């Protein structure tokens, strides 16, 4: 239990990398990159967790009444999620452009085209 979240984050990152390296379709590769990104979210939030604590949001509890988890990593992750989505969009736009220019989205075929 003490290392399980970290190991899950590492596993998700590695499986995403494996998918990226073996992908036959650029759209699938972008999806694998999204999986890699989610590994960072899991890692960051796992670092900030505290046993028996609750969220550092005091709209419905009195400050100091309960222990709270680390807000700094949550703030890092929160912006990362939305910005990650726009980066995914940028990569998908590149994929559309590649498909227009070369007529394929298979990285192996693209490599052959370059020569």
């Amino acid at each position: 239990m003490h290392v399980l979240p970290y190991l899950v984050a590492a596993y998700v990152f590695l499986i995403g990398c494996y998918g990226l390296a073996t992908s036959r379709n650029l759209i699938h590769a972008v999806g694998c990159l999204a999986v890699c990104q989610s590994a960072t979210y899991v890692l960051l939030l796992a670092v900030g967790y505290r046993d028996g604590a609750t969220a550092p949001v005091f709209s419905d509890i009195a400050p100091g009444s309960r222990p709270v988890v680390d807000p700094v990593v949550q703030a890092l992750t929160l912006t990362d999620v939305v910005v990650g989505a726009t980066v995914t969009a940028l990569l998908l736009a590149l994929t559309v452009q590649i498909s227009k220019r070369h007529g394929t989205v298979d990285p192996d075929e693209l490599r052959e085209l370059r020569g």
Partner: protein
Amino acid sequence: MADAVIVLTLLAVAGCATAAVVNRDPARQALVLAVLGTVLAVLFTVLQAPDVGLSQLAVGSALTPLLIMLTVRKVRRRSAAPKDGRQ
């Protein structure tokens, strides 16, 4: 008890990530990614990060699938269209 639900969601995230990688068809992968987004949101809730959970829900449940499916449609329509001279 709180630990049980954390372990459960962590394993679900790992399983979902594996499924997202091994489903090679982009449309099917987008379906798995939509579920992965929701599962991640649940994980963030049990890790006491509702803000991040909201962010993940907003992005993962509708926005990312829409982007991927629109790209899939564009790429498929191109390859279904009559081939031009460059190929």
